[in-house]
């Protein structure tokens, strides 16, 4: 089965990207070409092969449970596009009941 067909506008929506019609028209063939190339991986026999998520042999390291200083709210708010009362301001996130 071919997996190289991609509904670019739908996937962009999942990724919270609003694309113009021009962008969709440009990306569609480019992404299909890349996916066709990636489909070559399906020819390899990977039976019994463990996936590598991570190239170094370090897993689940926990730091000591000791409080340490972190950035101040003031330092973090300095980059916020919109703020009020020492908090980040955003549009309403729930609709009226």
């Amino acid at each position, binding site marked *: 089965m071919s997996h190289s067909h991609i509904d670019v506008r739908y996937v*962009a929506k999942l*990724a919270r990207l609003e694309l113009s019609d021009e962008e969709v028209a440009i990306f569609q063939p480019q992404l299909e070409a890349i996916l066709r190339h990636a489909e070559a991986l399906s020819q390899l026999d990977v039976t019994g092969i463990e996936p590598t998520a*991570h190239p*170094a042999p370090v897993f689940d390291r926990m730091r000591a449970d000791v409080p340490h200083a972190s950035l101040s709210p003031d330092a973090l708010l300095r980059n916020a596009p919109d703020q009020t009362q020492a908090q980040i301001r*955003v549009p309403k996130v729930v609709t009226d009941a």
Partner: protein
Amino acid sequence: MTLASLRRQLLAGDTTSAAILHHLAGEIAARDSLTGAYLSYDLEAALAEAALADLTLPLGGIPIAIKDNINVLGQPCTCGSKILAENYRSPYDATVIRKLRAAGAIPFGRMNQDEFAMGSATENSALQTTRNPRDPERIPGGSSGGPAAAVADATAIAALGSDTGGSVRQPASHCGVVGLKPSYGRVSRYGLVAFASSLDQIGPLTQTVEDAALVLQAIAGFDPLDSTCLDVPVPDYLAGLHHGVHGLKLGVPKEYFGTGIDPGVRKNVESAIQKLAAQGAEIVGISLPHTEHAVATYYVIAPAEASSNLSRFDGIRYGHRTAKPADILDLYKKSRDEGFGPEVKRRIILGTYVLSSGYYDAFYGRAQKVRTLIRRDFEAAFQQVDAVLSPVAPTPARKIGAFANDPLHEYLSDIFTLSANLAGIPGISVPCGTTHFDGATNLPVGLQILGPHLCEAKLLQIAQAVEV
């Protein structure tokens, strides 16, 4: 001027850190309008640090240029993107910056790059064009094109870049400087804006191998703030630098010398291999059989990780926010559409697709398994040989604009550098000559040396023998 020679001058009292900074500012004013390596620099802040520099420290008083995806307190960190260009100032120092400062160095200059380090030409920077100082019609390589171009142009003494699939080694090769990608876990990634977290690593770009060793010495080592950073001792990278290659076994993988390599690149790389053989290295033909699958594997895994990492750029806490959003969803979508450039969008969409239900196993799950096969290729090779020699890129630097609208073609040119990131092993690019190419003369060619995990000292030792 190399870092090592400036250190000697500083210690002898023949120059000062302030004089070096003023000299660099003059060089930037004279040439960077053409090269376009610097996005910004803060001379006053650097001079204030220079006044306090402890010259007895290993990098005391030395300015180091920083790729614009590494956070330096109070400075911009655009990642070459419009989404961070408007108003972001770093609220903290990356661990590599803390370590550079602890070694006496002064972070100076924000260097251009492909947007979020996605690219091989620095043409994906949303902010400006960077040109190869060896030929201004050509790309400097990427994504660390700004750092490489500045070091080659002598507007920087040394620089830090980041390498996710070759982004330090390939621009180093194209610009004729040294570029080192350390082993995964050797250098902390804390404060490096994440592109693909299982592949990213910060490394130096320098004029000489010795300078690369000096910078690596300063930035390597454990960091509790990066859970993937290895808690293992850091060796003395200068101690064995001049030990030569006599008796070393160096592997030449047949898959890296097939068709598609420019004849000038092949000739220079083969001459470098002969040079190492003449110094007593034993050259051994080897095979890395899964090499042909590296591009497909990488361009599934890296976009998958990128789509996740870049979800943080949503117009809420920092970065660009669209002007008049209808609601919160509109804010996310428009802010991201306005802020990201085309290559970043392509990779986010690709990554979202390969991670989505129904395609995860076919693409992402499978690519992770092929990544294991690529890793095993190297493990088997390093049973036979001490290091692997290859070209860095199939061709020298191409002309600016030559691959517009053909991203797959551009991805395929990353074939020789991607595998080191997939396997987590270190790699270095060291200049090995120049060649004619595509109407140009004297374009630099780099030799790539790959070694076993955490064997950076061995790579530096071999690279030093190429350089001499």
